């Protein structure tokens, strides 16, 4: 690693600092203590006003006031950057942002040696991406770090990645004998597209964050998503030895596949990009000290892409429980004949199936009513809502109490905030049973809210529903109105069971899905990481001299006393020595390998 100061002058993607250089604080050296300095890596999220998952990050940062946070944010669009940040708590000591949406070619031309270095690295990278076999992880990682070192030493990576050298290397790799089937069909426009997209994906390599006063000063890096944020963390780990924690509430690779499936790119482009992202994700999962998927579904994807089970801790997202406390603790005031559905109206929620199920419920319980509460999502959602209203009007004629009363439909479509349902908690409280009829679901937030309200629930078996509900509600297969109806009727006729299930659901939600458990889980994971994988730094005294014996000797013992000690190999050692260690000793060796 080249640490000469003269090599740090090149600023590749310019990033902003929130504090002037004079006020920059020196790193805090309480490694392993209760005070941890966390480099929080985000992409298109916190602290931007329009960011994804900013609420979760904000709660995490505010909840862990005893630690220190440095935020490194990658913005996604110019609009996002213009909209500004949300207010930050005082223990956020630094915010550095960098745009990923602009190709900031610094115009630094490479010299002959740098060009050769680039050509070698890119050739390797392209070869690893295009190769049909799956044993290219080492080659890919070597090439990736080679490019990162080149960007750090010489700059000018953005221009180089779009240069003819890169396109030619890609062409050679695609025409190689063992290349992917789809890659062999790549023509010139496809090669150019792939080169441009790879340049986009590799922009974090050009950031000026991986220095001793940047991410190097953090005790651990917490990437709040996969993708570019995790790549930054990976590079910080490579350059500065900072352990990496990756939280994924949605699997980045999966969203990449879904986005690529919708795009109209040529098959060769999609195949090459998919291979690149798969290898990159594999490298991130291999090198991360701990992975925290948000649910079992994300966890399965991570395991599938090569993450070690021993380093995965599922941390469920937390939700604010206090606004449901009143409803959850009060005795059941809900109308025993009312079913409630709450959520955003969109086709994936399968309200049609819910209406058909309700038709069957009405046959068994003629007094039953259904309240559908929620706003439509987008134009498609509005069209779907109209369709559902029409269907409800067809299935259920308006009915009245007597001959002189004005009639009403047993199915009502309302929005939260209307007089009948002023708050979300009131909406849940108004019914006996909360129903979820989705055919596609990620983490079912409305189900968790119903659980907080102590409601009995009937839901379809999709996404993380079974994992969330445990045994505290009824689960039926999706697209099965009859089963849904039978379960609803069973619950409507049995108030005691409803009460039991509701209480159990509330207890389960309070145990698993509160903000506090989320923050506590991350707190203990932070401490675990700094205890297990401390950053090796030379500690300086007041005069700036290295302080001998500042770190106790036992902190340097790589791995376990009794483990396989031969696996502790310095970086740059032979590749076979650090590859595929024995399970169980893996965590230790990955630290020792630095």
């Amino acid at each position, binding site marked *: 690693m080249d640490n000469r100061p003269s090599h740090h002058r090149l600023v590749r993607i310019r990033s902003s600092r929130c504090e002037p250089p004079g006020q920059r604080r020196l790193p805090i050296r309480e490694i392993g203590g209760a005070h941890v300095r966390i480099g929080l890596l985000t992409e298109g999220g916190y602290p931007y006003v329009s960011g994804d998952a900013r609420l979760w990050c904000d709660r995490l940062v505010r909840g862990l006031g005893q630690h220190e946070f440095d935020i490194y944010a990658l913005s996604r669009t110019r609009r996002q950057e213009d909209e500004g940040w949300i207010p930050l708590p005082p223990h956020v000591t630094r915010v550095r942002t960098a745009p990923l949406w602009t*190709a900031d*070619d610094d115009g630094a031309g490479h010299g002959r040696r740098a060009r050769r270095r680039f050509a070698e690295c890119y050739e390797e990278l392209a070869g690893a991406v295009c190769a049909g076999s799956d044993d290219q992880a080492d080659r890919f990682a070597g090439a990736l770090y080679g490019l990162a070192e080149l960007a750090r030493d010489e700059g000018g990576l953005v221009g180089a990645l779009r240069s003819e050298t890169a396109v030619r290397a890609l062409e050679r790799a695609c025409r190689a004998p063992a290349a992917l089937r789809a890659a062999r069909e790549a023509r010139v426009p496809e090669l150019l597209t792939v080169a441009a997209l790879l340049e986009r994906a590799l922009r974090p390599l050009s950031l000026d964050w991986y220095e001793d006063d940047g991410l190097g000063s953090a005790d651990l890096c917490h990437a709040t998503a996969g993708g570019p944020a995790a790549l930054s963390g990976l590079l910080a780990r490579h350059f500065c030895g900072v352990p990496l924690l990756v939280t994924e509430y949605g699997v980045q690779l999966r969203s990449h596949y879904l986005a690529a*499936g919708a795009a109209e790119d040529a098959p060769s482009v999609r195949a090459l990009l998919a291979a690149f992202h798969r290898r990159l994700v594999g490298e991130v999962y291999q090198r991360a000290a701990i992975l925290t998927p948000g649910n079992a579904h994300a966890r399965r994807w991570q395991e599938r892409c090569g993450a070690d089970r021993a380093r995965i801790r599922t941390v469920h997202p937390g939700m604010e429980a206090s606004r449901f406390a009143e409803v959850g603790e009060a005795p059941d005031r809900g109308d025993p004949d009312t079913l409630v559905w709450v959520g955003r109206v969109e086709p994936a929620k399968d309200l049609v199936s819910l209406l058909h199920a309700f038709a069957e419920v009405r046959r068994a319980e003629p007094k039953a009513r259904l309240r559908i509460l929620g706003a439509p999502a987008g134009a498609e959602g509005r069209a779907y809502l109209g369709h559902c209203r029409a269907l409800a009007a067809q299935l259920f004629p308006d009915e009245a109490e007597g001959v002189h009363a004005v009639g009403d439909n047993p199915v009502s479509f309302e929005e939260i905030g209307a007089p009948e349902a002023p708050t979300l908690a009131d909406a849940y409280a108004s019914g006996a049973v909360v129903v979820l009829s989705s055919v596609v679901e990620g983490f079912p937030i409305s189900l968790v809210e119903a659980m907080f309200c102590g409601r009995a629930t009937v839901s379809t078996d999709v996404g993380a529903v079974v994992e969330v509900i445990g045994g505290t509600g009824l689960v039926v*297969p999706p697209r099965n109105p009859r089963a849904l109806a039978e379960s609803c009727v069973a619950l409507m006729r049995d108030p005691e069971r409803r009460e039991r299930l509701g209480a159990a659901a509330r207890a389960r939600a309070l145990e698993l899905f509160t903000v506090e458990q989320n923050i506590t889980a991350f707190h203990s994971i932070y401490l675990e990481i700094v205890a297990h994988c401390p950053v090796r730094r030379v500690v300086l005294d007041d005069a700036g001299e290295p302080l001998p014996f500042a770190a106790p000797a036992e902190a340097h013992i790589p791995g376990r006393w009794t483990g396989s000690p031969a696996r502790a190999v310095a970086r740059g050692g032979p590749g076979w020595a650090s590859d595929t260690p024995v399970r169980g000793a893996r965590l230790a060796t990955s630290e020792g390998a630095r």
Partner: protein
Amino acid sequence: MTGLGELDPPGTPGSTGAWDTRSEEWLAGDGDADLADETESPRDPGVPAEADAAARTSPAADPEDGKDRRPAARRGAADPVKSLMHRHRELCERAVDPLEIAAGLEAHGVTDRTAARFRHRDVFSLAEEMYARVPRDAEPRPRPTPAAAPRARADWALLALLPGVLCAATVAGLHLTHGRTRFFVAAGGVLAVSIGVRAAFRRGPLAVPPGTHAWRSTAHTRAWTWWLLAYALLGDGLLGAVLAGGPDDLPNGTTDGPWPLTAAPVLALTLACAPAAWSAHLFAAYARRRLAASRGLEEFSAAVQPLLLGTFALFLCALAALAALSGTALDEPALYPETLALGALLLLARLLTVHHQPHTAFLALAAAAGAEALAPGLVLIGHLPGCSFLAVAVQTLVDHWGAGGVPTLACAAAALTLLWHATRALSRASAHAPTGEQT
């Protein structure tokens, strides 16, 4: 059902064809109707005969069992994965890797529990089977339609005429006015032409793509360009005056004063903005078409090089014609070598700037401008005692080729260098890559 899973384990088929034939027969036939046929059909070597029989007589696979409410049974599919593939056939055909199918299936609500119905452990292994079973016949995929080549548009085509028109108006104004008015006309004309040139290069084939590095570095390039044009207008007169011991007076806007103007080359060059835009458009459009049609980078380069030379020659012809025209109109000598050399240099520099090579263009322009500035400078220094040897080279050049020899030589050398560079740089595919900028 017990033991069925062990008998007929899901797995990647040994041969796609055999599986497909068999499952198609199962789909087409109605249960036991084609039992005899079934025994004759090619059989997957990995599946024993008993397993097949068991699979067909199992309740899940039996289409006769009309009372069973399970959809798979109701639809009579003996091979549930086959019908799943049929339902998601677009996904399967598009998928480049099993994980893409897995992601797509999950987006359609398939979970591990669903996958268990297809006798798979999870969605991933189900997706793997589906990926392996997608028929990949030799039928080539339809080529994606190439991105539409840039079309000629009225806005830039008209704007490209603007500098020439403004320059002609200015020259006419200079001829019609005298004294102070002429000075104001000249100043206004220069301003108008510079605005016109900027407007002409703001859009169309000669516009620099926004957001690139080139976009910021063009300020220097623009300064040198104006210097070169100014020399074409005033330089010959200046050099003559300096050699004669002057200049004694500022230029008065005529061709016969002590510091005469040479307006014909400048008029020809501003008029040539239109042919320059058209030749750049031709080059870009044809290169884009070649790009979509080329299989390899070498093929593309070989096709684009003659194209570049062709459009360049076309532009030179147009420029020569314009030079003759403006010479006749202004009743001045046409000064072909000067005009052609400078025009060639400016076109090549602009093409390189547009195609992501601004640095080289800047260097060539700066070198030519520097050489032109050096000539009168050397002569002036040569007036100093003891330095007369410095002016000898310039004097000799002017004696042989006239005052126009200096800019001709400087621009021609720079243009030739650029031409040599451009034939390599502009025939690369990366020079024609679309800039996918987001804002």
